[in-house]
């Protein structure tokens, strides 16, 4: 795979980086349309690289089909990476199986989107939280029970909850159970894959506050995946915007929303901006039409070319690299130097 797609590495304190993903590719075979043609390939994740510092929250935002969940699953080793390295705690974990993988999962946990399908309906809540402890042989039997009780308290559920079945809980409470289960082996990194998207707004706020409190208390690191820019902005320190399997822009949260540089980011921001004259102005100028194209056998050139209002011939022929354009700010666009970014500060001031 081409090395040029990787993010230029800055001089970062090596010990501060907990997870480093280098040139990750995840491709799936998608069946044949004709017996004489080769099978088509879904390019779910196509050369993604990023680094996550200890104790911070790394956000990934994008539309459906952008590969954000596949990236999360590849980090968790739930889908095999086609190529690339996933370095977690200074060890490449890509392709690990069996006991070594189990040992890694002690430090690496995930919270899924749908708390209804993420819990086994036939097992009691307490048993499900204890399961990772049993499998990883952490503590004695009574210590595990004690820890389950403590975890329930930490996520705001009463100790009696341990004896109930998942259907006896509401959606928000189930997500609390999932968080308690992820916390059980005391991991360093928790991947939250759309962890609040399925919840009502009031419950969503409760869960976000809970996750943030746990981060403060335990020094947790999160990879937070969402399609909701408002949530991402509030919750994350650093944000990557994905489109069709690639990162198109990556920046610290404050910079991304003060000076976005990629036309796709402009469009996302225009769609999510709070109502008012600013939003009208942004949508008029920057909101793109259409749907994201299929990730099956994508055409050469920039993935966004089909919907980009500023597209030129060069964009359709050559793929842009993710280049450094500021302090820890990267964008993949051929016309980055020509296109004037929206002057958000002037627009918000007026």
């Amino acid at each position, binding site marked *: 795979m081409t090395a040029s797609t990787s993010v230029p590495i800055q001089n970062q304190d090596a010990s501060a980086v907990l997870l480093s993903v280098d040139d990750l590719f995840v491709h799936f075979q998608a069946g044949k349309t004709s017996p004489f043609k080769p099978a088509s390939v879904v390019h779910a994740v196509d050369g993604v690289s990023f680094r996550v510092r200890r104790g911070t929250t790394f956000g990934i935002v994008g539309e459906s089909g952008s590969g954000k969940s596949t990236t999360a699953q590849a980090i968790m080793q739930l889908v095999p990476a086609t190529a690339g390295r996933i370095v977690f705690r200074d060890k490449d974990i890509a392709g690990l199986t069996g006991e070594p993988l189990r040992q890694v999962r002690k430090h690496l946990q995930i919270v899924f989107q749908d708390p209804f399908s993420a819990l086994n309906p036939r097992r009691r809540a307490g048993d499900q939280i204890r399961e990772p402890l049993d499998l990883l042989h952490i503590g004695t039997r009574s210590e595990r029970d004690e820890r389950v009780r403590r975890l329930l308290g930490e996520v705001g559920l009463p100790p009696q909850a341990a004896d109930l079945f998942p259907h006896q809980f*509401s959606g928000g409470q189930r997500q609390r159970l999932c968080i308690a289960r992820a916390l059980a082996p005391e991991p360093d990194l928790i991947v939250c894959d759309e962890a609040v998207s399925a919840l009502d707004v*009031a*419950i969503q706020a409760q869960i976000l506050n809970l996750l943030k409190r746990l981060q403060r208390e335990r020094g947790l690191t999160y990879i937070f995946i969402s*399609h909701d820019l408002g949530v991402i902005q*509030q919750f994350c320190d650093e944000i990557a915007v994905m489109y069709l399997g690639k990162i198109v822009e990556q920046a610290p*949260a404050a910079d991304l*929303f003060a000076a976005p540089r990629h036309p796709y980011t402009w469009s996302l921001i225009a769609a999510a901006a709070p*109502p008012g004259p600013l939003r009208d102005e942004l949508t008029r100028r920057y909101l793109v039409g259409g749907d994201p194209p299929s990730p099956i056998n994508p055409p050469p050139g920039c993935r966004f070319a089909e919907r980009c209002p500023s597209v030129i011939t060069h964009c359709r022929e050559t793929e842009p690299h993710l280049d450094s354009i500021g302090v820890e700010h990267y964008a993949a666009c051929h016309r980055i130097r020509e296109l004037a970014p929206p002057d958000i500060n002037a627009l*918000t001031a007026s």
Partner: protein
Amino acid sequence: MSTVLQVDNLCVGIASGNRTPVPVLENLSFEVQRGRTMALVGESGCGKSMTALAIMGLLPEGFVVTGGRILLEGEDLLTASRRRLRSLRGNAMSMIFQEPMTALNPLYTIGDQIGEVLRWHRNLGRADTREQTIAFLRAVQIPAPERRLNAYPHQLSGGMRQRVMIAMALACKPRLLIADEPTTALDVTVQAQIFDLLAKLQDETETAVVLITHDLGAVSELAHEVSVLYAGRCIESGVSHEVIEHARHPYTRGLLACVPHLALGRQAAKVWSDLGEIPGMVPPLGSRGPDCAFLARCSYADDICRARPQPPLDPAGPQHTVSCWRHAEIAA
């Protein structure tokens, strides 16, 4: 302005054997005028979707209307015959469902499904149906409509499917359209397109729209009026910008505070500050007493709230009513 839909003291309950039905909706009243949009807002379990299903006469088995009236241009829908309802549904009133994948039949092409509405209600012939269907697909901005006519739902993206649903719902130019969270299943950029499309079509056809949503923040630009539901009761209603800007009920205020809205520019928040949260959750069915349903979660709750039943909707400003004993103090 003429009133298209009038809902009067609507009560819906779940029948439970010989006992009195467990209330799901209590004394809900609202009106929608021609060409206007009315939003119903609340968490899940507040009765938003049940209101929509009651209007359409599609309440699931076990649910019964226990009181009130629903008038569509003066015609009482609750006493209408099944045959009459069948001819009204899809013709005078129609509905866009939340999940376009489950609302479309996977075994028929989208041309068949939109055409069915026209053949049934308009008695159009084959050629006319085809021509009209293409025109509707073009109106909802589906590219290459002649080819899409023969596509099955699984061949379309989520946004396209929702456009097909809209085309189907608007095929007979209904006077009332109910949109039940029409964009929750869609991506943000597509959501904006769908709302723009709905607004454009509404301008052309002067359809009255009931919009069901949980995003109170977005209501002011999508709807003219809003009713906030909580546990099956309307707790605040009025002109949308008035309700959003001067929310009086603690629940409405809580809903507004707990959504993290995107902040742009240099003043964008850089440090995490905890979101305003409403503790607890909506009380389950059957455990809702006569007192204020929000009492257990309310930070303003006082002796007066515990001592008396839930107050009726009380005027709190021009075209703004609220059901709260302490709304005057909260506003101050």
